[in-house]
Structure formats: structure tokens, C-alpha cells
């Protein structure tokens, strides 16, 4: 519909569909390299949060957007990743570059366990199952001596040998590297056999099975991969904030991640990134506005958390009612509009 027709299979499979993609990529790399020099610490910290959220959102989008398996427990996987890495680096002294994949694997393992009921359950039952799982994980974190309950745990700094990451700038390069890597992985997954199987299952699982896609394998795999992303995001989050409490991984975190992929666009890589940027940016925007109005309405600052929750809810509801394809749909429409201008199509 956008007037770009591909004549060969290779062209369709290309990761850089046209020259513009490469140009945008170069612009992005230049910005990423120079932005730590231009921006201040607060702005960099927002970008860092966005980077971590991008990784988590990509994982959730693989599950909900690509495979069509509804999950309300993504926050639990982040919690598992965060606590695994905190325990591994803190109690056992394992270096970060090992604990990061291990925390991803731990989350992935539990993701597989949650994924098994998905073979029998569909739609709302699955949503309920994942929700119950999230509550049980939160309960365990609160009541286990190892995780120190609501006292929370201190997490070590990221260090490789003697080199320790301290400043926001160093965090920025690290997190951007991981976020970019996650995007590339997802993009590759998307255009591979696995990604196509996921989409086939989402569109019609019975037909997919008839086409020779082993449903059980791919459904469980979707849970595993999604939980891996969540675990890695949780691990980065723990090392970035350097303090974790179970309360920060509750149902509202899962809702925030769902809001990301819904506003961004289900089943698209670009959508996950846009959604992560927007939803992470919203609370900072609220804080900014409240700061501006503080002089006139001093009581306003007590309502920041309420506003945050309400705006997330509003974003989810309004997007689903009026723009189900999310920001990605808007982007696509504008692109087509300019490409075919002055004609309608």
C-alpha cells in the first residue's frame, strides 16, 4: 500500500529495506555517540531509563504482539532478573558480564514454566494465569530471607575487572549498546523462521498447526524469549538503580509495559521502541509540569503517582478505542501520506 514493491525474496528479507533506513541509522549512531557530551545528567538518566524499558518492551511485544499470548506478569520477569543478578553479584561475587546472561536465563526458565499452561489456556485464562504468577513472585520476594523483603537489597556497581561504571555517561553507552543489540536481535528474530511462526500462531493457531508449525514448541519458546528480555532488562535496572525492593516490580510495572507496546504498536519493533520512549517519558513530563505549576498550586506534587497511573490507563484505553495500531500506525499513515502526496493512494 505504500508503493514499495519487492521483486525478490532476498529484498523482502533485507534488514535495511532502503537507503533511508541506513541514513537514519547513521544519524542515530552519531546522536548516540555525541549526546552524552551535549546533555546533562538528568536528561541522560531519562535516556537510560528509556533504553532499559526498550529492552523489556521488546520482550513483551514478542509475546503479546507477535505471538498473541496475553501476559499480565511481565513485571515478575523483570523482578526475577533483577534479584538473580543482585544475588549472584552480591552473594556469590560473580562478575556482571556473567550474571547478566544468567539472570536472563533464570527469568527465561521460569518463563518456560509459565509458558507450559499456555498450551492449554488461551486469551483471558492465560492473562489470569500470568497475573497470578506475578502476584506469587511478588509474595515470595517479600517473604524470603534471601531477598530481604521490603527492606530491599543493595546492588553492586557494574564492573569489569578494575573498570567500574559510575557516571550516567558510562551507563548511557552501556545501556544504549544493550538496547541496540536487543533491537537487532528482535529484528532478526522477526524476519526469521521463528518470527514468522510466531505471527502465524497469533493470526490463527489452528491454521498454523495445520501448516506444520509445532504450536507447543513455539508458544513455550515465545514465553522463554520474552522472559529472557525481561530478565535482562530487570538486571540492568537493578544495577542502574543500585537498590531494589519487591514493591517496584508490582502489577503497575506490568501495566506500564503493556501500555508501552499498545501505544507503540503491537507486533512491531519500532512500536516497542516508540512506546518505551513515550511511556518512560510521561512521568518525567508530569514531574516537569508539576514543577512549573508548583508556585501556584503547591498541593499538586502529592498527586504525581496518581496522575502517572491515570495517564497510563487513559493512554491504554484511548489507544485501543481510537488507534489500535498505536504510534506505529500513525507513523505508517503519515509515511504513506507523504509518499503518495498529492494523491490519496
Amino acid at each position, binding site marked *: 500500500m505504500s508503493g514499495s514493491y519487492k521483486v525478490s525474496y532476498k529484498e523482502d528479507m533485507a534488514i535495511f529495506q532502503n537507503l533511508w533506513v541506513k541514513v537514519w541509522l547513521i544519524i542515530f549512531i552519531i546522536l548516540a555517540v555525541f549526546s552524552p557530551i551535549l546533555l546533562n545528567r538528568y536528561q541522560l538518566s531519562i535516556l537510560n531509563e528509556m533504553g532499559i524499558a526498550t529492552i523489556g518492551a521488546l520482550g513483551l511485544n514478542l509475546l*503479546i504482539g507477535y505471538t*498473541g499470548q*496475553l501476559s*499480565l506478569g511481565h513485571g515478575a520477569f523483570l523482578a526475577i532478573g533483577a534479584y538473580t543478578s543482585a544475588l549472584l553479584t552480591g552473594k556469590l561475587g560473580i562478575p556482571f558480564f556473567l550474571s547478566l546472561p544468567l539472570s536472563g536465563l533464570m527469568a527465561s526458565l521460569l518463563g518456560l514454566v509459565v509458558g507450559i*499452561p499456555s498450551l*492449554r*489456556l*488461551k*486469551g*483471558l*485464562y492465560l*492473562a*489470569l*494465569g500470568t*497475573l*497470578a*504468577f506475578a*502476584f*506469587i513472585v511478588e*509474595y*515470595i520476594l*517479600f*517473604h*524470603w*530471607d*534471601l531477598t530481604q523483603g521490603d527492606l530491599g537489597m543493595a546492588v553492586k556497581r557494574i564492573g569489569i575487572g578494575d573498570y567500574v561504571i559510575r557516571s550516567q555517561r558510562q551507563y548511557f553507552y552501556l545501556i544504549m549498546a544493550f538496547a541496540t543489540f536487543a533491537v537487532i536481535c528482535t529484528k532478526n528474530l522477526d524476519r526469521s523462521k521463528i518470527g514468522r511462526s510466531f505471527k502465524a500462531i497469533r493470526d490463527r*493457531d*489452528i491454521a498454523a*498447526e495445520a501448516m506444520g508449525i509445532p*504450536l507447543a514448541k513455539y508458544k513455550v519458546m515465545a514465553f522463554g524469549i520474552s522472559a529472557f528480555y525481561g530478565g535482562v532488562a530487570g538486571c540492568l535496572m537493578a544495577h542502574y538503580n543500585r537498590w531494589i525492593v519487591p514493591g517496584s516490580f508490582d502489577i*503497575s510495572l506490568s*501495566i506500564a509495559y*503493556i*501500555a508501552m507496546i*499498545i501505544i507503540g504498536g503491537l507486533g512491531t519493533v519500532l512500536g516497542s521502541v516508540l512506546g518505551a520512549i513515550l511511556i518512560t517519558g510521561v512521568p518525567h513530563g508530569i514531574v516537569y509540569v508539576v514543577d512549573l505549576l508548583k508556585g501556584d498550586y503547591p498541593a499538586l506534587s502529592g*498527586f504525581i*503517582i*496518581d*496522575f502517572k*497511573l*491515570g*495517564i*497510563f*490507563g*487513559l*493512554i*491504554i*484505553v484511548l489507544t*485501543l*478505542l481510537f488507534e*489500535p495500531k498505536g504510534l506505529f500506525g500513525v507513523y505508517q499513515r503519515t509515511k504513506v501520506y507523504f509518499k503518495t502526496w498529492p494523491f490519496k493512494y
Partner: protein
Amino acid sequence: MEKILEVLFSGASIGAIYALIALGFVLIFKSTGILNFAQGELCMIGAFICYQFATLLNIPYILSFLIAIALGALLGSLIDLLFFRRLVGEPIYSTIMVTVGLGSILTCFSGLIWGHDVYALRSPFMNKTVSAGGMIFSQASLYTIGISILLFALFILFFNRSLLGVALKGTAEDSDTAGLMGINVKKMHMIIWAIGSTVAVVAGVFLAEQSFVQTSMSHTGIKAMSAAILGGMESLPGAIIGGFIVGIVESFAANYLSGLEMAGFHFGDIKDVVAFAIMIIVLMIRPHGIFGKEEVKRV
């Protein structure tokens, strides 16, 4: 023995609340195909409205209860009108997500209006007890169980005997055919939403009576979902029985498992997760619940 009876009784009184909330889930799910994740939030809003009138404005308890019910019904029909009328037949994830979003919005409103503190609802049953046969019951629990059982009987009569109830049942069974038979399906959906949120409001006020009015009351809604699952999502008696079972199991677990410690793991506040454990077990073993019909659809 007396201890067991007391635990059973306190379990039944919380179970009656779960049953009421689960009834709301089942009613809305059965007729509109939407699983309302905001049921707990509706319940909380109802309790806050009752608190607003009874405690803050000093209006008699019964009257403020009735006002809360009326406002709850209004809120329910408004929700249907604003959101779910457009969403009938949409994919299941979008309807679920809209209710989740709605829950956040309702929590936001109650936080903005009433704040996040813990309040007590002033009611005629506060801190009063009845002793019978050497056991002590709180009046609030007795009242909760009594009124709930009355309500359940009324509901079953309503759905089987009255014209409107039968129309609602017909819409739930097959909305297309019901529409062809001259039933106004949109109106029926609106009535169901009103009834569903009314039930939630009643549950919220009962819950406030037994504990406090606070924002985190909405978690009870999610716990009640396990009652609905246990009973089978489509069955009204199932929801009621499931609610009582979940409440009683929870009460027993809270009494006999709390305070245990195993390998550094404390089983404190176990009543927060019993319902979820039940939910997972039911989903694993018998996803269609006790009374639900098994959908034969293998994939």
C-alpha cells in the same frame, strides 16, 4: 472444634464478599464476553462513596449505602456507554486491556479525591459482637453473610422468573438471536454493566465494614477472580460457591499456616496469595472450573 467453626465462619464472611465480586465478573463476562479487571476498583470506589456519605457527611448508614448503590449503577452504565459499547466483538486482549486501563483510571480518581490513607467506615455494626455457644462472632460478618445470601436468592429468582432476567439470560446465551427476538441488546448490556457494578459496590461496602476503606481494596477484586475461575466463568451458582470455597480455604490457611518458617521463608500474610495459588491450580487442572462446560477445542 470451636476454633474450626470460628475460622469457618470468618472464612464464609470474606467468602461472601468474594462471591459477590465473582458474581459481577460472571454476569458481565457471560453476557458481554468481557472479563472486567476493573471489578475490584469498582468495589473500592463503592466503598469510598459510602464512606464519603456515611462518615464525612454524616448521612445515615442505610441511606448512604443506597446512594452508593445508585451511583455505582450509574457508573457501570456510564462505563458501558463510554467504552464497551464500541468494543463488543473486538479481540479479547483489547477488551481486557481496556478494563485494566479503566482500573488504573479509577484508582487515579480515588487517589486524587480521597487520598491513599486508611479510613474507617462508620456503620451500625462496627466493633459489635454476638456470642453464641461459647463462640464470638462479629455482627458485621453475620450481616455480610445474611445479606449476601439474600442477594444470591434474589438474583437467582430474578434471572429465572422475571421477564427482564430472562431477556438478560437470552442475551447472554446468544446476543444475535436475542436481538432478532426483539430484545434491545445494547440496553441489556448496559443493564448488565449496571448490575455488575452494583454488586461490586455492595461487596466493597461489606469489605469496608470488615476492614477499612483504602485504595488497595482493589486487590480483593483480583482475588475474587480466582473464585470466578474456580466456579467456572459462565456459571452464577459456580461463582457463589467458588467465592465461599476461596474464602474458607484462605481463612484456614491464614490461621494454620501463618507464622510457619521454612528454610528462611516466612509464610506471613499468606492470605494474600492463597487465592492466586488456587487460581493457578484450577487453571492447570480444570480450566473450565467446577461448573463450567468444557470447551472441546484442541490446538
